[in-house]
């Protein structure tokens, strides 16, 4: 992996140099929250942030996506939605969120290639920023992640004082730096050591951990406790809102609907949430997941049992958003730790 140094005061220049070619999504502060938003100049972004409230999956998998539009009446016409060919840079994405995209890729690739997601995904360069100050509910290290891991990223920047340690982890990443090479200098061994120190400090700062000895064994264990009364006790306090699923970087369920006026309409795809009763409601009126217990359990199983079985990955990156934003303190670290203690 090629490693470089970018001085902090050169960062705005770098952003300015790539702005004409790429739409840059970067963390922007609004009402005490941080969002990934397109920026036109570097001063609009904030790099002093823990993580964006809405994960950057939303840049690839839009909450609302028009699949095609149509006209009704005598002259019916179907017009496919044009797929954007803009090249994008997601700047400042955290390693956990980058991992989440690798996790959901198979959903949009395996059986059917989803042009809406894949076009944006392929056009995107992920420029990550190491998470030097993890928040209270960060637990990426419980799931083999690291707050400063370049894996799943094209480029990773790590703040090592007055400069960024830059790791190029893909061809795309190399090309982006290649065009702006004059701003970068090769990293020295001392810089590499500094990065390691920063990473270690960040890893040590993650104190909340899932207390399960072995992740793979836990995945298997879930097979044996499906009918445990435990799930009911967790679900009793669940309100059934969709905050945890919508803000989850790996949740990827959607609904497809036609939205029409008298003479025209659009087929749209919107995020859906398995926490809602309608999610599984059949046309007959039957609901295979009739109670909150079924739905809460499904959310845990989908991430920690079904997904690993289907795609050999746990569908959770440990970003902590579902914990931060649950109005009733349903805490996945706690849920998983206690599930590990449930007797089959």
């Amino acid at each position, binding site marked *: 992996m090629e490693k470089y140094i970018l001085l902090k005061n050169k960062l705005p220049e770098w952003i300015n140099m790539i702005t004409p070619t790429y739409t840059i999504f970067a963390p922007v502060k609004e009402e005490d929250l941080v969002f990934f938003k397109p920026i036109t100049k570097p001063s609009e972004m904030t790099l002093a942030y823990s993580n964006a409230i809405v994960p950057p999956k939303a840049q690839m998998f839009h909450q609302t996506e028009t699949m095609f539009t149509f006209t009704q009446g005598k002259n019916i016409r179907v017009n496919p939605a044009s797929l954007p060919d803009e090249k994008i840079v997601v700047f400042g994405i955290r390693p956990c969120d980058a991992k989440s995209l690798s996790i959901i890729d198979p959903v949009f690739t395996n059986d059917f290639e989803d042009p809406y997601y894949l076009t944006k995904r392929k056009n995107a360069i992920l420029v990550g920023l190491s998470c030097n100050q993890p928040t209270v509910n960060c637990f990426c290290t419980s799931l083999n992640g690291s707050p400063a891991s370049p894996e799943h990223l094209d480029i990773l920047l790590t703040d090592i004082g007055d400069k960024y340690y830059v790791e190029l982890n893909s061809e795309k990443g190399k090309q982006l730096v290649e065009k702006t090479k004059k701003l970068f200098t090769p990293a020295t061994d001392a810089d590499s050591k500094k990065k390691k120190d920063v990473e270690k400090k960040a890893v040590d700062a993650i104190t909340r951990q899932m207390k399960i000895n072995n992740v793979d064994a836990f995945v298997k264990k879930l097979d044996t406790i499906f009918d445990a009364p435990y799930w009911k006790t967790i679900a009793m306090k669940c*309100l059934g809102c969709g905050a945890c699923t919508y803000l989850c970087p790996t949740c990827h369920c959607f609904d497809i609907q036609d*939205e029409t006026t008298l003479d025209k309409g659009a087929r749209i795809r919107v995020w859906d949430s398995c926490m809602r009763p309608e999610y599984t409601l059949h046309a007959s009126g039957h609901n295979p997941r009739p109670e*909150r217990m079924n739905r809460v359990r499904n959310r845990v199983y989908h991430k920690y049992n079904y997904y690993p079985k289907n795609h050999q990955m746990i569908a959770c990156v440990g970003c902590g958003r579902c914990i931060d934003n649950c109005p009733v303190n349903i*805490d996945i670290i706690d849920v998983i730790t206690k599930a590990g203690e449930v007797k089959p």
Partner: protein
Amino acid sequence: MVNEKQLRDEVKKLVSRDDVKYVIGYEQGTYGFQVTPSFAFTPEEAERFIFSPLCANNLSVYLMLEEKPPLRKGEKEDTRKVGLVVKGCDARAVVQILQEKGLKRESLVIIGVPCTGVIDPKKITVKFPHQIKPVDVREEGNHYVLTINGKNQKIPKDELLFEKCKQCEYPTPVIHDVLLGDEVKSTKKEEYKEIKTLEKKALKEKWEFWSKAFDRCIRCYACRNVCPLCYCKECIVDQLSPQWIYRSVNRSENTVWNLIRAYHLAGRCSGCGECERACPMNIPLTMLNKKIEKDIKELFQYVAGVNLEEKPLLAMFKPNDTEDTIL
């Protein structure tokens, strides 16, 4: 504040009764300043109950969330009572539900907590963003005393209180079977300062303010689900035929959703502020509720959820009602 031993003893007594199913209260949460809803079915489980200035949740929502799966052959409906710990604003929600006949009074046992205000989790998290270990928070006069790593920290109440608590006119539950401790009398008055300021602004400014807020909405419906008074069997936003609100998340549909939510609570909202607390996108939802509350107070001299004998606002008519509202 409440004597926790007295609270637990009361809950133990209740759950030991044959006619009580369980009691809903609060227990210590999993990290930092979190407190979480708790359900006690047995006296042992009642041991977990706490009450502190961190107990923000309005637990009356769980009365409406209780699931009643279809009865099996020969099975009889469980008509035992549910016990509930309420603060002043929570109690008003219960009164409102009872007025609307959403629940029967005899199905509830209400443990009232005279409330001296609760802490806004967003405010305390900003002050202590890295707090992982649970913190003991006590109230002493005009201060909160936080015990963090063995050290006491004194913070003026005003810095941490929910805005709603600063104007609370009904701190003692207006309905209860048991009241823990002495009644708290309020000398505060809701003056709607923030609302009055916004009202004075030009239409364009108001539109900018709200469209910016609604643009953030992700339609997770945490505001609806956390609300004890949003208990329609099928919410208008979920209805497909006819579909009143499209699923598309954009300014138009988000505005419709947020306004409909507020309007459906007109004359019903008890001002507990749970919608705003639950909103992950920091949309100032209580401002919408308060605006409607203020208008209703001015037009009909009506306050929701304070008198069990009264009919709900929209179910009553007085010959001298103002007609200004009819277009």
